[in-house]
């Protein structure tokens, strides 16, 4: 087990270095000028070149990468060209908001997916299976952007039950923008959370359905039935076998949700990493873009590592690898 952990940890290092290189270089592949974030469209050439020099954008790319990496390993992700604020604080506050949203959506998706998948796997070919599978296909196929707008129109505009946008009251009168687990804030989470959960729900449903159906066909389950165990007891054994895969899938989904919620966060003006990335992309705010991509990628790497560490604890068979 310690060797396994050490090996997984060592794998992470080249991945992390690769991530930094890609985060840095990818943003330069897109057309446009990073100084569009700061200079007006009709800024004369001398203003543009003075700005390039002021922000170090006139240096060769390898030099810029080296300087950026040296600062990044010390936790300094630079300063946003557009706002002048530290990228680290910008990204961290956005990550916190996205984490709240992604965790809520992943939880919703996992619970709904496990329940639907278990029912479907237990009744393969039946009406419950067709219903659950249909929902799962709908979940992975439906465009987020469209679903978000439809939910907003129904629950905000028509019914006036839930807010259409934002992350909470956040006015000076109620103590700032800090997230709180109260109804005033939680009601802002429901619509984006439901919108975002449909993909993990669909994926988890399909995974659990296949796992349950497959496990139920195995000999040890027949043996359990033969020993006269109750339906619940047999299902407990089936669940135990399926759990490591469910955990791995949910972990990956949480990672995808962290980085893949640009459209949902934009539709709901949710101030997370997706909203931040959207702003940074359209402004060509390179330090902000690089910092956000780096933090999201590292989050994904860390999540994978965590899942890999947790799996052997749940499934003893993994410890032999």
């Amino acid at each position, binding site marked *: 087990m310690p060797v396994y952990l050490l090996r997984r940890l060592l794998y992470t290092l080249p991945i992390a270095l690769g991530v930094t290189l890609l985060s840095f270089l990818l943003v330069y592949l897109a*057309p*446009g*000028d990073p*100084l*569009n974030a*700061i*200079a*007006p*469209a*009709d*800024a*004369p*050439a001398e*203003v*543009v070149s*003075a*700005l390039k020099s*002021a*922000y170090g954008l006139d240096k060769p790319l390898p030099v810029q990468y080296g300087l950026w990496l040296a600062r990044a390993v010390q936790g300094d992700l630079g300063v946003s060209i*557009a*706002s*002048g*604020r*530290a990228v680290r604080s*910008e990204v961290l506050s*956005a990550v916190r908001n996205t984490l709240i949203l992604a965790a809520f959506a992943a939880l919703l998706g996992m619970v709904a997916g496990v329940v639907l998948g278990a029912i479907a796997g237990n009744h393969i070919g039946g009406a419950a299976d067709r219903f659950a599978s249909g929902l799962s296909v709908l979940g992975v196929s439906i465009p987020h952007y469209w679903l978000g*707008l439809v939910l*907003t*129109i129904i629950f*905000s*505009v028509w019914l*006036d039950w839930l*807010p*259409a*946008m*934002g*992350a909470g009251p*956040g*006015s*000076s009168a109620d103590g*700032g*923008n800090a997230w709180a687990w109260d109804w005033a804030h939680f009601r802002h989470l429901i619509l984006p959370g439901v919108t975002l959960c449909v993909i993990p729900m669909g994926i988890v449903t399909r995974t659990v359905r296949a796992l349950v159906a497959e496990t139920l066909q195995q000999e040890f389950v027949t043996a359990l039935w033969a020993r006269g165990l109750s339906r619940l007891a047999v299902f407990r054994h089936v669940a135990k076998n399926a759990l490591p895969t469910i955990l791995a899938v949910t972990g990956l989904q949480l990672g995808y949700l962290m980085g893949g919620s640009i459209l949902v966060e*934009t*539709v*709901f*003006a949710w*101030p997370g990493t997706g*909203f*931040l990335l*959207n*702003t940074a992309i*359209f*402004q*060509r705010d390179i330090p902000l873009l690089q910092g956000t991509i780096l933090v999201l990628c590292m989050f994904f790497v860390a999540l994978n590592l965590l899942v890999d560490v947790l799996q052997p604890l749940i499934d003893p068979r993994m410890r032999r690898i």
Partner: protein
Amino acid sequence: MKSVLRQFKRISLALPLAMTLLHGAGAETVARYGISMADIPLTTGQPDRGAGAYQFTGHTLYDPLVAWEANIGTRPGKLVPGLATGWKSDAKEPKKWIFTLRKGVKFHDGSSFDADAVVWNLDKVLNDKSPQYDAKQSAQVRPRIPSIASYKKVSDTVVEITTKDVDALFPYQLPWFLISSPAQWEKLGHDWSKVAFQPSGTGPFRLDKLVPRERAELVKNTAYWDPKRLAKTDRIILLPIPDALTRANALLSGQVDLIETPPPDVLPQLQKGGFKVVTNVTPHVWPYHFSTQPGSPWTDIRVRKAANLAVDRDAIVKLLNGLATPAKGQLDSSSPWFGKPKFVIKYDLAQARALMAQAGYSKDKPLKAKVIIAQGGTGQMLSLPMNEFIQQSLAEVGIAVEFEVVELENLYLHWRSGAKADMNAGKGITAINLGYVTADPFYALTRFIDSRYIAPNGVNWGGFSDPKVDAVLDQIRTTFDTKKQDALLASIHQTMVDQALMLWVVHDVNPHALSPKVKQFVQAQHWFQDLTTIGM
């Protein structure tokens, strides 16, 4: 007993009413404003994100020396005294401008506004050796005040600014230059990132709270120096909601009280729901800017005129659900600089076809042209559907347009580089579609027609050059009489239209949608709006 009961009844009825009135008298009025930007513009003095951002964190928190009259909607605004009560060019040395400063004005931090503050602010954006120099603020305003050569304090209430050349239009540059407090910058340890959260200007609002990308809360400056511009609402909360449909939904669900730029498709629903849609003439035009470089298909004036006659602008206005007005030139016809162009821009297919036939082209033998356009973005309106409409319209008269579609940021690169640059001419691009702000003589006219501004020296993208036009522009720069100046500017606009320098399509109307809670809002005929006019 009866009278006691009657008395009690009266009191019990009157008490709640009195309590309500008392509460109402003390309650803070709040307007929540959904803005189309993805972040709150810079709050340190010079807002980023273009002309439209000045209404949010520019002219709310700060004042310029010379202001733009933005609290009137029934006619075009004009230059009015701001922190300078008067300004004039020296009769003997016309490059020298003397500004008399307003006395007794205080910044929000309590420090006094004076000539030192003006010089300090000019250094802040023009002198990169000064300790207060801020590259970000400089980048925003430097291109907008290109005429300034030097400046100095004459006395506590007088400042002298010298321009590079004689420039009678110089005052038009000054509403862009805003004055922030030197004392606040000192107090916050010379740190502009701290000033962003605790800015101090002289404007009609103070910044109470800033949460990046989420909100800015502006509170009424009760000690504002101009009683006519005291804010009608105690607190204005600016909420960045970049998605147009989300903005509309936020308004419909009561989360905000007013929004800018509602999507055209939602207008009937808004109006049916009792929301008011306010529009006005706005200094903006959505054109195709032609290249007049050798080899461009647009060098033939007949082709340029035919293109202008081939487009049914009323149909485009209909496509936008009425959120535009048909363009008859670079400027709206109500502008004092519109003039009387001989070439009347209208929809006339027969005349357009005749002109194309004279030039040797027809529907069967079309002229080919490549136009670079943006997918969308600020000022671009409904870029793709509008461009497709124009493509079909031009095909009807024998102009086969091919599009190069890029992101707006990339389009700016092509724009700054000029038609002659390899990235344009080398790719066969001979026209560019970019929404233009036309707020003042420089932005509306000079920068597009003066040969000295041919790209990359400016944004005379097409490379138009005419010594006669340059001579008139020189005359404008030395004409200090406003009426004569306006007449000369009108003659420049006439030339632009008569030469059909661009294909002018529509003007934006800068729509705002207001909930019934908003009782007052004056929409100026400008990108600068005055948020002090919002009354709840």
